[in-house]
C-alpha cells in the first residue's frame, strides 16, 4: 500500500513528522485509494492515488489536511518519444528515408505508475508550509477523470489546458473547450507522439556551426 523511504543523505531530518501526518491522513480516509507514496524528508511528498479516488483525494487534502492552496494540475505522458532527442541520436532530423525510431519501453517516475498518462497536481498548505504532489493514473481506455472544479476554482483552466494538450476529458467540467490553441488546431500537442514538424521538415539551421554531440566519455566540446 504505502511505502515511505527515508533519506539521511545531506543532513536532512531522518523522519518528517509533518509530511508523514499528511500521508497518514490521506491513507486514513482513502484506504485502498492510496497506491504508493514517496517522501523526501525535509523536501517534498508524492502520493499516488487511484483514478476513482482522485476527487476524494483533493477533497481530503483541502478539508482535512489544510492544503487549500491550489498550485497546479497537469499531465505527464510517460511514453518515450519516437522523435525527440535522446542520448544516442546524433542529429534530430528525420529527412531522407530515416524513419522514426521505436520508442523505448515506458518507465515511470516517482511513486510508480501503470498507464501512459498520469495526472499530477500539487496542493499546498500556506500556514504549515507543506505541500503534497498527488498523482493518479489515467485509465487508458477512457482517458477520463473526475473534475476538481467544484473543489478548487483554479482547476477550471488547468483542466482545460490538460484537455487540449493531452486529450484527457474531465467528467463534470462546466465548459471543457480549448484554452490556448486556435479553434481549428488538430491533435494534442504535448503528447509524445505529436511531432514538431519544423524539426522534421528541415534540420536545425544551427547544425552547421555546432560541434557534433559529444560521446559519453567525451568531456571536450561543449554545447
Amino acid at each position: 500500500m504505502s511505502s515511505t523511504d527515508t533519506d539521511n543523505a545531506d543532513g536532512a531530518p531522518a523522519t518528517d513528522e509533518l509530511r508523514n501526518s499528511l500521508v497518514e491522513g490521506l491513507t486514513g480516509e482513502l484506504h485502498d485509494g492510496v497506491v504508493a507514496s514517496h517522501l523526501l524528508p525535509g523536501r517534498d511528498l508524492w502520493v499516488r492515488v487511484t483514478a476513482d479516488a482522485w476527487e476524494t483525494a483533493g477533497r481530503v487534502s483541502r478539508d482535512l489536511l489544510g492544503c487549500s492552496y491550489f498550485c497546479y494540475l497537469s499531465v505527464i505522458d510517460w511514453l518515450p518519444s519516437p522523435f525527440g532527442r535522446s542520448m544516442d541520436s546524433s542529429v534530430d532530423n528525420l529527412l531522407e528515408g530515416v524513419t522514426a525510431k521505436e520508442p523505448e519501453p515506458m518507465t515511470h517516475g516517482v511513486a510508480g505508475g501503470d498507464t501512459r498518462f498520469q495526472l499530477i497536481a500539487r496542493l499546498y498548505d500556506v500556514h504549515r508550509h507543506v505541500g503534497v504532489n498527488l498523482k493518479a493514473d489515467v485509465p487508458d481506455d477512457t482517458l477520463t477523470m473526475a473534475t476538481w472544479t467544484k473543489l478548487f476554482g483554479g482547476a477550471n483552466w488547468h483542466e482545460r489546458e490538460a484537455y487540449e494538450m493531452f486529450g484527457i476529458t474531465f467528467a463534470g467540467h462546466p465548459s471543457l473547450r480549448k484554452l490556448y490553441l486556435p479553434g481549428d488546431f488538430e491533435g494534442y500537442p504535448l503528447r509524445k507522439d505529436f511531432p514538431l514538424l519544423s524539426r522534421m521538415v528541415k534540420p536545425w539551421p544551427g547544425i552547421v556551426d555546432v560541434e557534433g554531440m559529444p560521446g559519453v566519455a567525451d568531456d571536450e566540446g561543449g554545447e
Partner: protein
Amino acid sequence: MTAISERQQRAYIASQAADMRVNVELETEGMTLNIGPQHPATHGTLRIIVKLDGEQVVAADPVPGYMHRGYEKLTEVRTFPQVNTLINRIDWLGSFANEVPFILAAEQLMEVEAPPRAQWIRTLLFELSRIANVTLFLGDMAVQLGAVTPVFYAFRDREYVLNLIESATGGRFHPNFDRIGGLKDDLPKGWIAETKQVMVKVNAFCDELEALLLGNEIFNVRTRGIGVIPPEVALSYGLSGANLRASGVDWDHRRDTQVGLVYDKLDWKVWTHPDGDSFARYWVRLQEVREAAKMVIQLCDGLPSGPIMAKVPRIIKVPEGEAWVATENPLGEMGYYVVSKGDLVPFRVKIRSASFNNISIVPWLLRGVYVPDVITILASLYFILGDIDR
C-alpha cells in the same frame, strides 16, 4: 481562514444595492464587448469577451493563447542549458527570476549546491529583477487609471536598474546568466558601489509615487473597494504573490521555503494588507519594491568571496528523478516540475506560472463590475502575457 472583513462585506453590498437601483430604472439590451487582443490596457495580447448589461459586466471570459509559444513541448527537445535560455522569456520583465527555480530544480536532481557567493549574487539579481519588474507595474497601473506621468518616471528609473543588470550579465533583460552549479561570471569591478547608488534612486522613486498617487483622491476612489478578493477564494484559485498578500494571507516563499537563496540571512519583512482590493495590491507592491531595495543593499554589504561555480561536468546530464522548486517571483509563485530520465534533455517540464492562476480568477471577479473598473482590476492583478500563455 479569516472571514471576509466587515468593511469588504459592506462595500460589496453597497455596490450591489447601487446596481439594483439602476437596473430597475432602465431597460437595456445586453451587449458583447471584445477587449483585446490588441489593447493598450491588456499588457499584451489578452482577449476578454465581456457580456455587458448597460455599463455592468454580466459575464467575462478571458481568451488567452495569443502568445502561446509551446514552451513545455520545446523543453523536451532542448538540452538543459538551452532550456535555460528559453525560459528567460516567460516573464519577460523580471527575467532573471525565471531561470532561478529551474536551475535550482536541476541542481536538486544533480545534488549539486552552488557556492555561497553564487547564492548571494543570485539573490541579488533576483531582487534586482523584482525591482525592474514591479516599478513598471507601478507606472503602468497609474497609466491605466489615467495618470500618465508615473509611467515615464518608471521607465526612466528602470533604466538604471537595467543598466546594472546589463553591466553584470550582458543583457538588459533575458540575461541567461544562471548556470547549473553557479553563475556564468563574477560581478564587474565597481558594481557594488553603483548598485547602492541606484537603490537610493529607487527609494526616491517609490517616495515620489507615494506622494503622487497614494494620497490622490481620484486614485483612491478608483481603486478602493474595487475588485475585492476574499482570501479563501484567492487560495482556491491559486492566486499568489502580492495578489494573495493583499488579501491578508501572510505567505511568502522567500521566508517560508528554503530553496538555496539566502533570504534567511537578511533582515526584511513581508507586507500584507487586509482589504484585498486594487488599492491593496498596488500598496503591497510599492512596499515590496522598497523592501527589495533594502535587501539589495544588505546583500551588497554581506557578499562573501569565493568561487562562483561549483564543480559540474561540462556536459550536463541530469540524473533520473523528479523535482519541484517554486520561488517568489515578482509576479507570484513560479515553479518548475522537472522530470528527468538521466538524459541531456529533460523528459517533461511543467511550468507553473503565476499569471495563469492570477487571471483564471477573472471570470469570477468581473461579475457585476463596471466597465472602467474592469481596467482597474486587470491592471491591479498584474499579469504578463508570456507568463499566462507560456
